[in-house]
């Protein structure tokens, strides 16, 4: 009865009435930097998980070369949901960090409102790929420094220099375990997106195009 869920107790994620407007925010960064923790701190439910299959759509041929004997490789993707109102839902997607899963990034980032790049100050280089990616796609993003206990705090200026970030890209401190801290990070991102949309031409191009 795996699929007999018609009387399942929860209707989580389902919406009465007209379909709500959904927007998505991406959470990127290196492996183990706290992406799932951040999603979990903010979402109204346990982070959900879905899988994509490396042999599925979007998998490029060269990903498979050399691992032909491995039948399937699935990549788990954590996501969460924040209902702003009956008519508006924000989805948070943790982007798989490892290079071999980058084929999923284009799919996820299409039409995104923006991205949070979580960075561990001890391993700043881990977030270079994400920063390169969002800069190239002109996707609004903020850098959130997840200050793990025991790490020496590094100044914003120092980090900006190390990451070679444009002056307008916000850098914030973020404790991924703290709901308030994560919320503030998202607010900073959306405010940044608004500023960019306002500063753009009269016909700003949606992020993720091209």
């Amino acid at each position, binding site marked *: 009865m795996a699929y*007999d869920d018609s009387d399942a107790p929860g209707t989580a*994620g*389902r919406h009465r009435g*007209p*379909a709500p407007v959904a927007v998505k925010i991406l959470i990127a960064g290196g492996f183990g930097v706290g992406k799932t923790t951040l999603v979990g701190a903010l979402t109204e439910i346990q982070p959900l998980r*879905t899988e994509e299959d490396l042999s599925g759509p979007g998998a490029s041929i060269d990903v498979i070369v050399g691992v032909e004997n491995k039948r399937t490789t699935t990549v788990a993707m954590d996501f969460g949901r924040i209902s702003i109102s009956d008519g508006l839902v924000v989805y948070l997607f943790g982007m798989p960090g490892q290079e071999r899963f980058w084929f999923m990034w284009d799919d996820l980032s*299409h039409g995104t409102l923006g991205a949070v790049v979580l960075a561990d100050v001890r391993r700043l280089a881990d977030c270079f790929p994400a920063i390169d990616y969002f800069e190239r796609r002109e996707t609004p993003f903020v850098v959130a420094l997840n200050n793990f206990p025991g790490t020496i705090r590094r100044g914003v200026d120092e980090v900006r220099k190390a990451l070679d970030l444009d002056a307008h890209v916000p850098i914030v401190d973020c404790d991924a375990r703290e709901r308030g801290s994560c919320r503030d990070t998202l607010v900073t991102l959306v405010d940044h997106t608004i500023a960019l949309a306002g500063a753009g031409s009269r016909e700003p191009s949606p992020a993720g195009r091209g």
Partner: protein
Amino acid sequence: MGPGPVVRPYALVRGRTRPTGDALDVISMVSSVPGGSPDPVGLEPEHLAVLRRCGLAMSVADLASALDLPLGVIRILLGDLRDRGLITIYPPRAEGLADIRLLREVADGLRRL
């Protein structure tokens, strides 16, 4: 946990890796067409499970998670159901990203968390 699927996911969709029609965003909302009584011929139990789940609008990602199927498989199932006119798909509004009012609504909503 049960014994797990006895059919590998892509066997459900007969080896297809791409859905028919336009690409489906992970946050596209899906709802089944009210009153539709599907002709079961050619439909797998998973198609019917999708229809049951999205009596109320639900996102593609939520459906994949709820039914524990890879996104790629869910997209193909949804493409089949769309072709039969059994579901309505609401893609995310691309122009919404340039819609300052919508963005403000998101920012204000997040501040209230």
